């Protein structure tokens, strides 16, 4: 079943075309890689899906419902959550409170509606930061701050996770651990789209790849086929073969 479908998506900033007539679908249960060099429009696609940006044209459907004009919080409540490239925990709150915020109901009459301590600890445990719950986010190492971002997204109980450059700044061991955690998320029923400019970390993780170049879809298919695709190598990689191998 197609969980997310993007049809004819376009986004212009003034005269600049950031995304141009892009269409792709995400099947329930799969991990899709959305790759492309810096500036190819990957993050803009995520921003359009999440309604951070209003689209210039095109539609975004989630679970069969048109969510193009929904507001960000409505999209999140439908079961779509995004982990940004930038970490933005609230410094004045502990790790626990940062996660708890993502469990609050969208109601001004809810005074005590957040998740229980056990539930918050379980979100943290899914990314191995359960020992840091009472810490300030500012005192965490980079990898744990990134894990906190993922725990926050998990706390919204998503069906689909959009992960924007989740491996940036992590070392080899951390990349491997995180990949294993993404695999376990999939086993728990979460579908994922992973954005990266570099395919190396994604090769073993993703089922399928969509390649973006200058805001357009250049290629799509199995990771192995994409690595061998001459158009991808010539146009997108501009000779940087090492980036895919």
């Amino acid at each position: 079943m197609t969980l997310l479908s993007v049809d004819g998506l376009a986004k212009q900033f003034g005269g600049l075309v950031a995304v141009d007539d892009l269409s792709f679908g995400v099947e329930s249960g799969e991990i899709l890689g959305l790759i492309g060099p810096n500036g190819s429009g990957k993050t803009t696609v995520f921003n359009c899906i999440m309604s951070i940006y209003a689209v210039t044209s095109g539609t975004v459907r989630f679970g069969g419902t048109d969510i193009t004009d929904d507001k960000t919080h409505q999209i999140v409540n439908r079961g779509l959550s995004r982990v940004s490239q930038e970490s933005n925990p609230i410094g004045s709150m502990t790790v626990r409170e940062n996660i708890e915020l993502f469990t609050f109901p969208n109601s001004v009459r809810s005074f005590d509606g957040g998740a229980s301590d056990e539930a918050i600890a379980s979100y943290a445990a899914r990314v191995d930061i359960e020992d840091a719950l009472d810490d300030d986010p500012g005192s965490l190492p980079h990898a744990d701050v990134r894990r906190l971002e993922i725990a926050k997204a998990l706390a919204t109980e998503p069906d689909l996770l959009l992960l924007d450059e989740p491996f940036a700044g992590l070392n080899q061991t951390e990349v491997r651990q995180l990949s294993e955690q993404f695999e376990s998320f999939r086993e728990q029923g979460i579908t994922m789209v992973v954005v990266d400019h570099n395919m190396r970390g994604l090769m073993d993780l993703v089922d399928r790849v969509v390649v973006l170049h200058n805001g357009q879809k250049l290629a799509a298919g199995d990771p192995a086929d994409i690595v061998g695709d001459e158009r991808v190598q010539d146009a997108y990689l501009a000779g940087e073969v090492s980036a895919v191998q």
Partner: protein
Amino acid sequence: MSDREQTGRSIGRLVGRVESVLRDSALPQGAGVVGAVGQPAERLLWPVAERYNRTLGERFGEVTGLQLLLLLLSFGGLVTAPLWGQDYLRPLTLGAVWAVFAMGWDIQSGYTGYISFGHSALSGAAGYTTGLLVLHLNPELSLFVTVPLSILATTVLGLAIAVPSLRLRGPYFSLVTFVTVLLFYRLTKALSHWTNGLRGIRVDVFTYDLTLQYYMVVVPMLAVAATLTYVGRSDVGTVLVAIRENEDAVSAAGVDPTKFKLWSFVLSAVPMGIGGVLLAHVNAGVDPQTFVIVDNSIQMIAMAVIGGMSSILGPLGGAFLFVGLRDVFLVGLGEELRWLALWLLVLLVLVFARDGLFRLLWRALGALGGDRR
């Protein structure tokens, strides 16, 4: 490095040192005598605090023994004021009215981060609604009619300012509120055939019994304090702080920041309405100089800053301290010197104790109690 840069760094170091001295002096390590008295007192009070924490702590915030003692002494002092402070009932009554204003300002500006320079327009709206109703409709109108209508009018004005300004952030929002209060001030004069201009409108006092009048102000003030403390400690308060810190993160959490911002404006406007009505009846009238003038908005901010923004009880304490200094302790200095001293105090707190004096005191008491929580 240029001379200017060097001077800048030296000043920065000096400020840092003063800050750390201030911080240390508030902690028990630097205050042996305080520690010697405080720690046994804390041990004595802890069982009571523990019981409070078990029952009310989750709703209103957990406390140490000494913090609970401060709350109980303040509460007891306020409730028994007519017994020990007959000579000070007028400033205490005004302090309570301004505490309502400072707390109302705090829930929107301190918590949500939408800094208003124009909250005296809101209290003015309440005062003028009461005034206009008794002047033009019926001088005998019951408080049961004028009070709800005045609070409603304030809420409507609060939303009328807020809704078009929602997209504005930071200084632009503040400028809108600032211009609004200037506009409101001019309107009260321009519409003088309705408002009596600078002369204002006479309103009956609640009562000529100062003790009774004091309670008629302190009881609503305590109700506002309890309600806003509860809201501030709840999920709603957390979301408001999150909006201040990172509005996008709130959307990403599936929570509608617009809805919560509007709610914080309502939570702010209602106390401003209550305070405005109280002030009109305490002052026996409403006029532009005592109500609307922008200086009043700045005084509300000053009270919140002195006490400690985004803490509700801090601005409450700040209001009593500010009014106490203004109307009692610094009166001997004369009009000009008194205001100079007051604004200098605000400046010093802003530079050296940005979290506010009452939060500093609260933390010091907490530190004396050890790290139990």
